[in-house]
Each structure stands twice: as structure tokens, then as C-alpha cells.
């Protein structure tokens, strides 16, 4: 796919999000930008506190009340979602965008059978009648390979296993055939074998429907299996975006390289695993350096303190570093 010819489905430009808290303003996301093209899977990878989830909430327009978007645009089919009113956003959420949350059991309504919860989405967004929506809900449950969907549609979330609940979440998210699926740590807390099944399922359906996926995860190995491109986040900045293979074989940002070296891989031994020195900087500070990795960076030099460049190394590989590898 040549990005110059294809129009991006979603463009995030210069997005900054702050949280006002009692102990100061947290600069959670700072001037990030990326594109998602139709049908592709983009993974956003980073440690906890790097701003991955805040980014996805900002796109969906479901940020906490304490949050403020201080700059940027989120362009979807030519309109800036940050300027849309709540009524319009409700139309877009569910129909155009769908989201899968980390913990399916808390994301589902505990006192409503899962089939009805899916039907609710369908009657709201697809304008189906109640009985038609319920019939369609059972079809979607079958589509996510839930055995015996008629019976499972009557089950409450507590009666289903974690993997089953996540399938229900996927069924609900996909019921209106959205253009973009945001999956926020969809398999954290699930077992390895279930994780594999769920990720394959998301991949299959995305391919069949030509749906784009934004996968938020802390697991670089998982991202590398699923994603076409990976964006690495560190302390509210996107430090590198590249096609998966390029990112893994030839990382250009020192943080990306450390992250790869810290992730246990099947072939490595313990002595080959290298720790990442230091910790994320306190995002409440007012004197955050332009490069928020500079205080941990082994390649830090005096001229790193200028405004952070976002260098386009090639059409699809961008890195934010004064001295890339």
C-alpha cells in the first residue's frame, strides 16, 4: 500500500491532552500525530503511563472530565471530531468507531443478558426493530464463533468465561460494521491460548470487512504479530512509527531499541535481556525537556535540548530524535 495514494481513514494531528489534578497539570499526551489507513492495523505500544489509552479516549471523545485537549485535530473523513457536538459523536461512536476495552467483564452491563446488550447497539445505530435486532445479535455472536449462540445470548456476563465475554465485546463492537476498531489491551488478563484465538478473530474479521484497527498494547511481541505498523509511545510522545518489520529489524529511536531488548523473546537468554535505565519522567513537571526520553537516553548530547524534530526517514518511517540510530 502506498500511503501517498490512499487517503487516510483517520488523521491525528498535533494532539495534546492535559489532566488537571490537585497535584498539578499532567501533560499526558503532547503533540502527537499519526494516520490510520483503511483496512490496516496500527499498534500503539508503550509502558504504562505513556499515554496510549488517553490517545484512544481522545479519538473516541470519551475523555475524563479532568482532561482538556489543548491542541490538535482528529480528522475523520474530512471533519474534525474534536469540534463535533455530543449528539454527532454518539452517532459516530458505535457506527463508525467501535471500542473494545481491557476488562470485558466490567465493560459489559452485569444485569442484562448479553444478546440484549448487542441488540441495544443495533437498534440504536442500525435502526432495526427490537426483534430484528435480537435476531441479528445472535448472528453476530455466531460470527465471533461462540458455540450455541441462541443459548449464550440469554446468558448474563457473570455466566460466561473471560474469553467468552471478550468475544461478546467484539461482537458488540463489530455489529454495526465500523470503519475503525479501537482495541485497548483486548487480551490483557486472558490466557495465552485464549489471547491467540481472540487476536486471530479480530484479525480475520478486520480483513473480511476491510476494517482498520488501532491496537493499544504494552506487549511489543503481540503488536509485532498483529500490526502492519507500530507506533512507539514514551511519556506522551510518539517517538517512532514504522512498518512492523522495519521497526523490529532496524529501530531508529534509542527507546525502541531498548524496548525490543527488554522484551523476552523465545530465543534469547536472561543475560541478553537488557533493562531500560531510569523511569518515565514525572509528567506533572513544568520543566519537561523537549525530548522526554533525554534523561534516560544513553545517547543524550547537549544539542538534544532543541525542539524535538519529527524526521521522516522514508514515506512510512518517522522518528522523533536528534540523533537516531
Amino acid at each position, binding site marked *: 500500500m502506498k500511503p501517498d495514494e490512499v487517503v487516510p481513514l483517520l488523521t491525528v494531528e498535533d494532539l495534546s491532552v492535559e489532566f488537571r489534578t490537585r497535584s498539578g497539570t499532567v501533560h499526558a499526551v503532547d503533540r502527537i500525530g499519526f494516520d490510520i489507513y483503511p483496512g490496516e492495523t496500527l499498534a500503539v505500544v508503550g509502558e504504562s503511563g505513556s499515554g496510549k489509552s488517553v490517545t484512544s479516549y481522545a479519538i473516541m471523545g470519551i475523555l475524563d472530565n479532568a482532561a482538556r485537549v489543548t491542541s490538535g485535530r482528529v480528522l475523520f473523513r474530512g471533519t474534525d471530531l474534536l469540534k463535533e457536538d455530543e449528539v454527532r459523536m454518539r452517532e459516530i461512536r458505535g457506527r463508525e468507531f467501535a471500542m473494545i476495552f481491557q476488562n470485558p467483564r466490567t465493560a459489559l452491563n452485569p444485569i442484562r443478558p448479553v444478546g440484549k446488550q448487542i441488540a441495544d447497539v443495533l437498534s440504536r445505530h442500525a435502526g432495526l426493530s427490537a426483534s430484528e435486532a435480537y435476531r441479528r445479535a445472535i448472528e453476530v455472536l455466531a460470527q465471533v464463533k461462540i458455540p450455541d449462540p441462541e443459548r449464550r445470548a440469554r446468558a448474563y456476563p457473570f455466566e460466561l468465561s473471560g474469553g467468552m465475554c471478550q468475544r461478546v465485546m467484539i461482537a458488540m463492537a463489530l455489529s454495526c460494521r465500523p470503519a475503525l476498531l479501537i482495541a485497548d489491551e483486548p487480551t490483557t488478563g486472558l490466557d*495465552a*491460548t485464549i489471547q491467540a*484465538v481472540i487476536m486471530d478473530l479480530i484479525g480475520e474479521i478486520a480483513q473480511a470487512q476491510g476494517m482498520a484497527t488501532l491496537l493499544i498494547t504494552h506487549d511489543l511481541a503481540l503488536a509485532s*504479530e498483529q500490526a502492519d505498523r507500530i507506533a512507539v509511545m514514551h511519556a506522551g510522545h510518539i517517538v517512532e512509527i514504522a512498518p512492523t*518489520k522495519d521497526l523490529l529489524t532496524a529501530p531508529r529511536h534509542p527507546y525502541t531499541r*531498548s524496548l525490543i531488548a*527488554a*522484551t*523476552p*523473546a523465545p530465543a534469547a537468554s536472561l543475560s541478553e535481556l537488557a533493562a531500560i535505565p531510569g523511569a518515565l519522567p514525572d509528567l506533572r513537571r513544568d520543566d519537561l525537556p523537549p525530548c522526554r526520553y533525554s534523561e534516560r537516553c544513553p545517547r543524550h548530547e547537549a544539542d538534544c535540548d532543541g525542539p524535538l524534530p519529527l524526521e521522516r526517514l522514508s514515506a512510512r518511517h518517522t522518528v522523533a530524535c536528534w540523533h537516531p540510530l
Partner: protein
Amino acid sequence: MTVLLEARGLVKRFAVKKDGGWWPLNRRPSQIFAVDGVSFSVAEGETVGLVGESGCGKSTLVRIVARLLDATSGEITFGGADIGSVPARQFGRMPQRANIQMVFQDPTDSLNPRFTAFDAIADPVRRLRPMRRADLKARVFEMARLCGLPEELLSRFPHQLSGGQKARVGIARALAVEPKLLILDEPTSALDVSVQVVILHLLQELKERLGLSYLFISHDLNVVRLLCKRVLVMYAGRIVEQGSTADVFGAPAHPYTAALLSAIPSMSTEGRRARIVLTGEPVSPIDPDPNVCRFYSRCPSGTSLCTSAGPALVPVGSGREVACHFPRLAQSEVGRVEGVRAGSYNTTG
């Protein structure tokens, strides 16, 4: 190597209420077979990994071995002495308590929020090895140094520490009474990869310096492979495969192990490994049929034999054991297994 810990035929069942209808005779109590006939050993200085999915009974098993929970039946010996017959309530006051210590999963939940790091580390010493105040202080400072915890952090409360620092407090607390066996229940699962690496390096270093034995529980196979020489794979309350880490990870013999290994995401750029997708739902741990293999509902290679005789754990050479009628083995070893196929689950009591 001398055997440090040995468990034989451990069984733990929890009674559950089940709707038996109105007819009184149907209302027999149902039981969850959390741990169902597990035997294993840990030698001195050895690191044994225990892997399995959530709900397979691994946490119940280690709580029994750590003597925090009483088994329904089975024997546990530690350094030749029987510790299984001591009720868990009394074990806390025995000198043996100091020999087996545990590091818990979530460093936030397992530290008392009202204890400073110093008190958290000093508490087991005060209880098990009473000593003078000055000695205690020296001991705690030594443990903190050993675990890479800066001294100025000892006066802090858990909410003032980062995840990695709390993990270090948890390890220092377990080591403070000089245990011989350390049971680590998913010590890094709540940590970021960057911190996980540091803690894994620390554990490896401590083991070499203090000559400890580890029983390392994790669902992350990549982490187990890094730290452990030998690995036990558990499924639905039973050990389905055990052997050296290199053998088991190199050529898994049990279909569940094979599926588990194929499910780990790898960062290899040469395309994906063939993934074994498990269909079907896991078996319910409530009153499972003793004659059906526990893995049958999800197994890609199950036959009628698997529903008439559940396979027992049998040796298949080079210290390896598998509980499967159709293990994936090199051709040379297949004949040996044919002979022992007659063996099956032996669930009595």
C-alpha cells in the same frame, strides 16, 4: 542433587453448592477438583517453573506447598521432614515456616498499606527470628541492600513507592528470614517490561548468591524459560507434562503444551509459527468425569480412548513425563509409551 521439597499425590477439593433439584437423593455436594493428584519435587538450588492458565489450580497448589492451605489428601516433605500433616494454622508458628517463603503476585495488594517498607521487611523477622533492635535494623538494611532498595526508601509507605520498588520490598521481606525455598507467584506480571527485566536479573543474582531454590509460577512462558531449568505444565488440576525447560520448549509432547507454546507471540520477523488453535471450552472443574481426559474437550487429537481412560503421567525418557495417550514424541520413543498406555487416572478418595 538432594531433594528439598517433595509433594506426593496432592489433592485439594472445594465443596460447592449445586442445584440438585427437589429430589433429596440428588443433592449430594459437588466439589471443585482444584488440585487432583499432583506429585513433584524441587531439588536444592533448583529453579522449577509451574505454568498453566488461570483456574488450572497452580495458585492452589503452591498455597498448599507453602502451607498456607491444607490439602484434602497427599503428603509434603521438606528436607526429609513431614510438613504436610501440620495444619496450616499451626505451621505459621513452626521453625519450618522460615524455610519456605513466598513472594506474591501483586506487590501493591500484598504489602500492608500501613506498614513502611522497613516494617514490612522486619515483620517476618520479628515473628520468626526475634532479635535485638539493633540486629533487626542491621538485618533489614542488609536485605534492602541485597535487593537493590535504597535505604532512604525504607521509611516510605507502599503508596509512595513505584511498582518495581514494591516488588523489591516483597522479595526482601521473603528473604529476611533466610528461607531455603522461595515460592514466586507471578512476581512480574503486574510490572512493565522495562521493570520486569530488572526484577528477573535480581532474582537470578539472588539465587546464585544465596543458593536458593525457586518454585516459579507464571503464565508467561517466555519468562519461565529464562529463569527455570525444569518446568511443570498444569491443566485442570493435573500436571500434564514435566521435564527440562529445553526439552519441553524445544519439542512439547503434550498437545496442550504445544498449543500453549504456539500461542505465545514472538517478535520473529520471519513470519509466524504455525499456530495450534484450541477450539472448544475448557472442562468444568466441578465433578469432572474421572475416566475422561481433562483436555479432551479442546484437544486436536482426541479419540474414543481418551473418553474411556484418562491418561496418567508416565515417564517418556530423559526425566520427562507426559499425561497423554498420543504424545508428540520422536519415533524412537513411541514404542516405549505404547507399553504404559494401559495406565490411567487413579482417582480414589
